[in-house]
């Protein structure tokens, strides 16, 4: 018997039992629906993550630090930490920092073009124009290798610094400041009050100053030095998923951050010590190789690829969970197909007997039933994937809005090839499920089958 004739006959038998065919297919469709959505969501997330990383991060950039815990998941945990020489406080953490000498060593590492330390400025308090309250905040330099998204105002292109009198405020700060519309903050003044801690004078110095200027002179010496620095808000950066940079600090230009940081730390242990530096690898150098070289020096480094890997791990895990549910639904539908096909064989005992009496080969009878199962799988796959595609495509704009993914980004990306492969896989699963009923049909004795009346 020709394959086309077998397929046609299989299709016709299914058409004669429309309700049953449709219901059995729907069981598969549930699995197909889930799997299609998870494929689309996985693809969407990966494309999105890649988009964020390639458009926001210089692929040649490495973040280099001495302390591994800067990158670890529990970096935010406080608690009791062992004191170590040459440590710097950051966000309530004590982290081992890099010295100027180590910075030079990093600079000298093969493949590195330039090194940019991350400057931290610890202001006593921060004031915003239009608010009479005082705030405290981390202040750090604007990282030109990472591009944030702006809620208001504009950010310079990747690789360019902001001007020395400009500041970038994260959107999350607005609520605390008491401003609703991000645009209202643009062009406003932000003032830092910096207090340089007074050096602890030695006994000889105390004696000398009292001798020279009296008690008033001593008071002045131990009072420290206060400085006020004013910046104009250039941009309010967005707290979206796209923004990978620390969105919990105020950003000023590299030059100013360096000046202020050094002003505050001069004469202290923290002078010219950095918790992290950004190293830019030469265009010809592989960031991964540079990373290896740095790790050999006892440092930790994170490349753009690492960041991507981190995001992908999460995406893959979530996708795996959803796929698991889809596969469970499929397993349930496999039993549905087996059951339906067994009933079909029983119902059509006479027909099978007749076909075998007329000389149809047992394997052709089996094929007929396998093709029926294949049709069911195909139908279920098309229905499930079709609904998932239609629903996903129509819901995409809404999802984008709800998750604030940014215009033109979609969570669900449907690709024809994986879906076609999925449907093919479902057809295969259905054929495998139809194996036992098909075998039963093939083994029917025509004499027995035709005796049934």
């Amino acid at each position: 018997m020709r394959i086309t004739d077998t397929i046609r006959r299989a299709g016709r038998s299914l058409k004669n039992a429309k309700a049953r065919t449709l219901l059995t297919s729907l069981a598969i469709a549930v699995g197909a629906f889930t799997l299609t959505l998870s494929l689309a969501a996985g693809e969407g997330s990966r494309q999105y993550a890649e988009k964020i990383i390639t458009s926001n991060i210089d692929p040649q950039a490495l973040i280099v630090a001495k302390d591994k815990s800067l990158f670890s998941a529990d970096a935010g945990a406080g608690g009791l930490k062992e004191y170590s020489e040459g440590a710097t406080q950051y966000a309530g953490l004590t982290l081992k920092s890099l010295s100027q000498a180590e910075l030079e060593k990093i600079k000298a590492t093969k493949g590195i073009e330039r090194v940019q330390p991350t400057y931290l400025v610890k202001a006593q308090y921060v004031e915003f124009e239009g608010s009479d309250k005082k705030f405290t905040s981390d202040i750090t330099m604007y990282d030109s290798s990472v591009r944030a998204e702006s809620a208001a105002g504009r950010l310079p292109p990747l690789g360019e610094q902001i001007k020395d009198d400009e500041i970038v405020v994260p959107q999350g700060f607005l609520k605390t400041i008491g401003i609703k519309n991000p645009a209202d903050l643009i062009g406003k003044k932000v003032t830092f009050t910096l207090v340089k801690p007074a050096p602890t004078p030695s006994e000889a110095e105390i004696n000398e100053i009292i001798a020279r200027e009296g008690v008033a002179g001593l008071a002045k010496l131990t009072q420290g030095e206060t400085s006020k620095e004013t910046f104009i808000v250039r941009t309010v950066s967005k707290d979206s998923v796209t923004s990978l940079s620390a969105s919990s600090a105020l950003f000023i230009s590299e030059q100013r951050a360096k000046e202020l940081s050094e002003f505050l730390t001069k004469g202290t242990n923290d002078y010219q010590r950095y918790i992290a530096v950004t190293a830019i690898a030469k265009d010809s150098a592989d960031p991964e190789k540079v990373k290896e070289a740095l790790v050999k020096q006892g440092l930790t480094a994170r490349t753009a690829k690492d960041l991507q890997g981190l995001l992908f791990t999460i995406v893959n895990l979530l996708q795996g969970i959803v796929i698991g549910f889809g596969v469970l639904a499929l397993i349930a539908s496999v039993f549905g197909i087996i059951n339906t096909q067994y009933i079909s064989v029983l119902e059509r005992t006479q027909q099978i007997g007749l076909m075998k009496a007329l000389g149809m080969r047992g394997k052709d009878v089996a094929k007929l039933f396998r093709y029926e199962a294949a049709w069911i799988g195909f139908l279920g796959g098309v229905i499930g994937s079709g609904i998932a595609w239609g629903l996903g495509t129509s819901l995409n704009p809404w999802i984008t809005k709800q998750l604030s993914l940014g215009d033109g980004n979609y969570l669900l990306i449907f690709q024809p090839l994986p879906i076609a492969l999925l449907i093919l896989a479902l057809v295969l699963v259905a054929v495998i499920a139809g194996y036992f009923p098909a075998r039963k049909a093939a083994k029917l004795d025509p004499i027995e089958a035709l005796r049934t009346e």
Partner: protein
Amino acid sequence: MVVILTVGDDLIELKQVTKTYGKKQNLFTALDNVSFTIPDGASVAILGKSGSGKSTLMHAMSGLDRPEAGEVIIDGENILQLKSKQIDKFRAHKIGFIFQSFFVQANETVSDNVSLPLEIADVSRGSRKRKIKAALESVDLLEKIGNKAKNLSGGQKQRLAVARAIVNEPQIIFADEPTGNLDSVTGAKVEDMLFGYNKKNGVTLIVVTHDPDLAAKCDMQINIKDGKIESIRDTKSAPKKKPTRTHIKVEV
């Protein structure tokens, strides 16, 4: 390359065919040492009560069943020695079946019902249409070609079954109680068609029945009882066809 020439006028020859069912105490002999010959183009009635073994005899001659002992020689070939694939091919190309309860596929069209043996025999799609039309024409059902079989009357269904049996131009047609489910008028019409086709095309017709009137219309009657041949009557002793047939078989 072997060339075998078979010369003779007997189409079917059974030699000491024995078929048993069950084992030991439950052993039941359905066919007991049955031997006879049927000439090509004859119409033969196999007569007997139910349980006499007449259906088993038909199954043995058509390759549906395999007797343990003896030889079933059809067209010069012992079909008991064929492999199952070859027996299926033999049935698809040389045998047509008509059953008491029609076994037409109710949900399929008349055309698709008749098409089944052609599909099984791998007849090319181009010649199928012509063959289907010719078969339906000869049973007077051509105007129903697109109808569903379930919309046909009992007599029409059996005529459809006749069309299905003759569509691939078989050498032998087996009809198992072809008129058993029909009233006498429609039954007579089906009988006329079968015998008419038998005479016109020289096809060997073997009718299994317990109806003596139907049996009387056949050239030859084989009476069977308890698995044994009781009597063979040749009412029209002269062979209907040219007395000699020459088969030229080319085996490569």
